[in-house]
């Protein structure tokens, strides 16, 4: 469903991505691993339209979407759940979810989707009228994921959902990610927690200095000695 072909990206004079090619098939979970600064988040930013690539192509179902606005991609079902959660702190849980459906003008299923989010994350239901700033880190991550679901993702780009969250909650969140995937949403998962990511993904890419250093089915990647460094590094 998504294909990146030799994508390169600069921040000013810094060469962040040096020709990334990768693929996310319909309905699968693909993980994107690598050390800090390897280009994982930048790759997601190019896909979601936050950054415009210098060269290369981003194709969604065969159609080039490189350099399109975030709004266009959101409409096409590419939803980016950013690093650091970035929930709207002054909005209540409910308002955060509503703004996640911003592009769905006049869509009657928004209410039903909100119920679906609450079914995944009952804690959010309990805190529906609470401001997001008052939630714990794990709850904010749940809210960020829930907010992304409100955009009806065909492809969900998830950046470090386990960062700074209690291990017990990480397990819970990853289980829900699998359920979201089973409901038909493809996921491109960026993780420092390589162990968890490999476990739930079908295919993995390991980035090094803005390039794909290693790729393969997750079950095969798990066995590779190079990955040891990642565990140590992460």
């Amino acid at each position, binding site marked *: 469903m998504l294909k990146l072909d030799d994508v390169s990206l600069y921040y000013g004079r810094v060469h962040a991505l040096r020709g990334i090619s990768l693929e996310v098939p319909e309905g699968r979970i693909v993980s994107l691993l690598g050390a800090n600064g390897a280009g994982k988040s930048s790759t997601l930013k190019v896909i979601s339209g936050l950054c415009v690539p210098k060269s290369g192509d981003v194709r969604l179902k065969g159609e080039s979407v490189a350099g399109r606005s975030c709004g266009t991609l959101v409409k096409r079902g590419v939803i980016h759940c950013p690093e650091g959660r970035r929930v709207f*702190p002054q*909005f209540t849980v409910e308002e955060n979810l509503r*703004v996640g459906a911003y592009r769905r003008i006049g869509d009657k299923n928004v209410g039903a989707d909100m119920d679906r989010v609450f079914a995944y994350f009952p804690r959010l239901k309990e805190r529906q009228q609470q401001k997001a*700033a008052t939630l714990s880190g794990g709850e904010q991550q749940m809210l960020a994921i829930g907010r992304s679901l409100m955009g009806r993702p065909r492809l969900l780009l998830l950046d470090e959902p386990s960062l700074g969250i209690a291990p017990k909650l990480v397990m819970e969140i990853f289980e829900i990610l699998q359920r979201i995937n089973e409901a038909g949403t493809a996921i491109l998962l960026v993780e420092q927690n390589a162990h968890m990511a490999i476990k739930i993904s079908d295919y993995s890419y390991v980035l090094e200095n803005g390039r794909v250093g290693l790729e393969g089915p997750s079950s095969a990647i798990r066995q590779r000695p190079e990955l040891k460094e990642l565990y140590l590094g992460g």
Partner: protein
Amino acid sequence: MGQIVVSGLIFGCVYGLAALGLVLIFRTTGLVNFAHGEMAMVSSFVAFTLLSSSEFSYYGAFLAAIAFSALFGVVVFWVLIRHVSQASHLNQLVMTLGVFLAVHGAAGLIWGHTPTSFPRAVEGKPFSIAGVFITPNEIFVLVTTFILSMILFVLFRYTRVGLAMRASSQDLIAARLMGINVNAVFLVTWAAGSVLGGIAGLLTAPFTFLGVSMMFNVLIMAFAAAVLAGFVSLPGAVIGGLMIGIFGNLVSYYWAPEMALVCTFALIVIVLYIRPQGIFGEAQTMKKV
């Protein structure tokens, strides 16, 4: 005393409207527009020019000037402010001060430096309500302020555009990721903010005479109101404006007119010292996790 309070309230409406524009722009775009008053002054002169050509009725000129305000705001944002929207506050401050000076200078060249009179929206003799004299024009100012404030609150709180503005004010990147067109939101905000300023100018001109320096006082008073509102609360901006209007008028009457501005400034300092988040603002806290 009642008379002083009521006429203070009328000035307060103007300060409140100007403050509303300031706060709206600051809240959404994170930028303090020092050129707010000067842009409003130009709108008043545009109305005056249209009226002098005598092809326009008062209300026609009023509406045309409002349309001009919106356009002026959009142009200033798109041509100048947009380029410093990600820059430091200092750069932004220099930019809006630059706009202030440029607009002030240009207006002086075009319309001269001699203040002229500007017609009221509603003519009519003052009448007495419970011992307090009030003119139909003052009632017009009160009603206009009330209606505009209500429209803005409803827009901000209950519409899709309002949701986009409130989201953008909290986190621009996240707003973009929701599919919000942040540039469009900024354009709408600048248009709306400038219209509020422009209307404040049109309402001010009959009281102060029309001149290139007519908005200096109003801008400072509006800043005081915005500070009371913590620069974030929209209702706070209006209520703050009314309070500042009454406060200034009481000082003028019981002490000296020259002291109104001084005391208002002192009030800003005191508020910033005791409650930097303003009386109506809330402290922006994000739980660190």
